């Protein structure tokens, strides 16, 4: 490991030397790297699609890398090393290990590259030159507000189940979970922590690993805890689909409001079918396309992207998709959601 770092660093230095000599000759030959968590998740597939299309349009040479599974940081480190060695101008990365990857990314920045975190902020967030992401807190807030508005007066007696991601509470999980509470009108206490709330409307939290199987099991567990659940917050749409199956098995699917985040095509279709009440749609294609533009601009002018007004990152937008708009909550309809969906 150490050896390969050293070798990559050496290669990087020599490649940079070469690049320094040849760079002034022409602005052409800008190359960039896209490093995603996996290349199987439709979210990242769409991200790659967006980056590839934009790179082609701008004449940027794009190389894509991915971890084998979610959480595979080792492969991402190797990918960054390759990019440094390759003399790329910038890196777009969705980090699997948001803190652990920082030292390696620092090497890339030291080598003069622009580092942009896509979708997942690093820890600390300023370890990247910029972050292009969905406002996950807002995404959670939108579905929370929608659920509260839809229930109306009954919101004060709601029984809410939270189907979260993994036990380690990754930032995206915390933001969506706490965002929902904020939107619904629950005191979040420490907004950086799940589980310190004492609102009696919360039945409990369970983890789903973000898939159908986990969603179903978590829903079953929480129903055992309290069968009167009538609102379910889910980390993403596959977890929501799993939760729906669990509710259906006990004949409760029509009495419970399920909300989710993502906006993938199967998820939006589930909104259309009434499985999911509302979902906050995010835009991976946009993140990647903006990222490539930023790298191109940086290569041409040396200018780094600046964050959205009032936020610490560049907000790539989020919309609430629902077939039943609630008063006071802005949303788009299913048709528009389907036109913008990914995966």
């Amino acid at each position, binding site marked *: 490991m150490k050896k390969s770092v050293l070798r990559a660093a050496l290669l990087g230095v020599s490649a940079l030397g070469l690049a320094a000599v040849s760079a002034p000759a022409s602005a052409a030959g800008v190359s960039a790297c896209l490093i995603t968590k996996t290349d199987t998740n*439709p979210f990242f597939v769409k991200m790659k699609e967006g980056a590839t299309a934009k790179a082609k349009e701008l004449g940027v040479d794009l190389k894509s890398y991915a971890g084998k*599974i979610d959480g595979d940081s080792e492969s991402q480190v190797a990918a960054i090393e390759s990019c440094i060695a390759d003399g790329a101008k910038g890196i777009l990365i969705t980090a699997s290990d948001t803190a652990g990857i920082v030292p390696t990314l620092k090497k890339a920045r030291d080598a003069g590259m622009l580092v942009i975190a896509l979708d997942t902020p690093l820890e600390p967030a300023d370890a990247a030159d910029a972050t292009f992401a969905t406002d996950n807190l807002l995404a959670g807030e939108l579905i929370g507000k929608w659920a509260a508005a839809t229930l109306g007066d009954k919101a004060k007696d709601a029984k809410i189940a939270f189907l979260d991601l993994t036990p380690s509470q990754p930032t995206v999980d915390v933001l969506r979970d706490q965002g929902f509470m904020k939107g619904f009108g629950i005191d979040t206490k420490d907004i950086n922590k799940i589980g310190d709330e004492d609102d009696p409307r919360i039945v409990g939290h369970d*983890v789903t690993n973000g898939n159908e199987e986990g969603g*179903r099991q978590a829903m079953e567990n929480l129903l*055992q*805890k309290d069968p009167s659940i009538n609102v379910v917050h889910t980390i993403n749409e596959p977890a929501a689909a799993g939760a729906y*199956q669990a509710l259906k*098995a006990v004949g409760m699917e029509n009495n419970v409001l399920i909300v989710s985040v993502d906006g993938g095509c199967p998820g939006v279709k589930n909104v259309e*079918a009434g499985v999911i009440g509302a979902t906050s749609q995010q835009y991976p294609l946009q993140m990647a396309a903006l990222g490539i533009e930023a790298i191109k601009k940086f290569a041409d002018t040396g200018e780094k992207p600046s964050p959205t007004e009032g936020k610490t990152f560049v907000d790539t937008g989020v919309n609430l998709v629902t077939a039943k708009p609630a008063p006071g909550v802005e949303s788009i309809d299913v048709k528009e959601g389907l036109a913008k969906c990914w995966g």
Partner: protein
Amino acid sequence: MSEASANARQPQEFEKALSGSDTAVANFEVSERSGLEKVQHFLHASPAAVPLIVLVASLLVFAVIIGGRFFSAFSMTLILQQVAIVGFVGAAQTLVILTAGIDLSVGAIMVLSSVVMGQFTFRYGLPAPLAILCGFAVGAACGWLNGFLVARMRLPPFIVTLGTWQIVLAANFLYSANETIRAQEIEAQAPILQFFGQSVRLGSAVFTYGVITMVVLVLILWYVLNHTAWGRHVYAVGDDPEAAELSGVNVSRMLISVYVLAGLICALAGWALIGRIGSVSPTSGQFANIESITAVVIGGVSLFGGRGSILGMLFGALIVGVFSLALRLIGTDPQWTYLLIGTLIIAAVAVDQWIRKVAG
């Protein structure tokens, strides 16, 4: 001739010493067993006893701590539903481990089979029953590949299935493009894919077809392993392949048949998985290999092959299910479940080593 037989009735001179010797049949018992040795021998003779005792004990303890919310017909049958998939895959894993092998590809084969069943129906418009058969064929083919590499190429099972795990999983993602087929579409167009999701209710107890099939499958395999020639050969091959070969067992054909059967069971698990989650999802079942090995090990099946009961595997899977649900109802951090299951695994292997001393 008659003279000879007359002589035979009378002991000859040199045989007289026999009358004074011990008449007992050859016996390996050298001395009286102590209490602990008796336990050791009992556990050696009935390998499913330890997990059964642990299962019953944990049920009782949690029933006392949590009460009716946990110890109800609904909760008990819910645990069965939650472990059904692991039970299927664990059955396949047990067969392989009994031959002193290991199969890391079980989960991947399961998912690929379910994806084939779904995609063949929806992408190519095949009738669903035919697509299901194709799924079984894929499962069997994957199993055959494992078996062929282990038995004919003589590669270690761990390495072979480490490889096929990656290959099958990658094939799954490449083929499916990670596309989920939604539950509503399956319900409308090919409900037979969700067959195992249907259920029978007895009062508040819910038995899905998946659960019933899993339990029946385990019972059938238990009978086959204990009361048929094929089953005894599985144990023989795992215990000592050379001795089995010398006794006339075609070891490599046995191994291939075991891996193919394991592949078929995984395909069945894939079908049951569609019933469980409603949809066809290429990302599910990622940890089924580890979960099945966990069930097998906690179930007291020896990783060295040739010893253990498939019923133990089912108890092992249920122990994990009981701990997961009970700890969640108590409201602990999910990490405690993993910590306790880890402890159980090590304890189970330690007990196995101790029991093995009887044989050694």
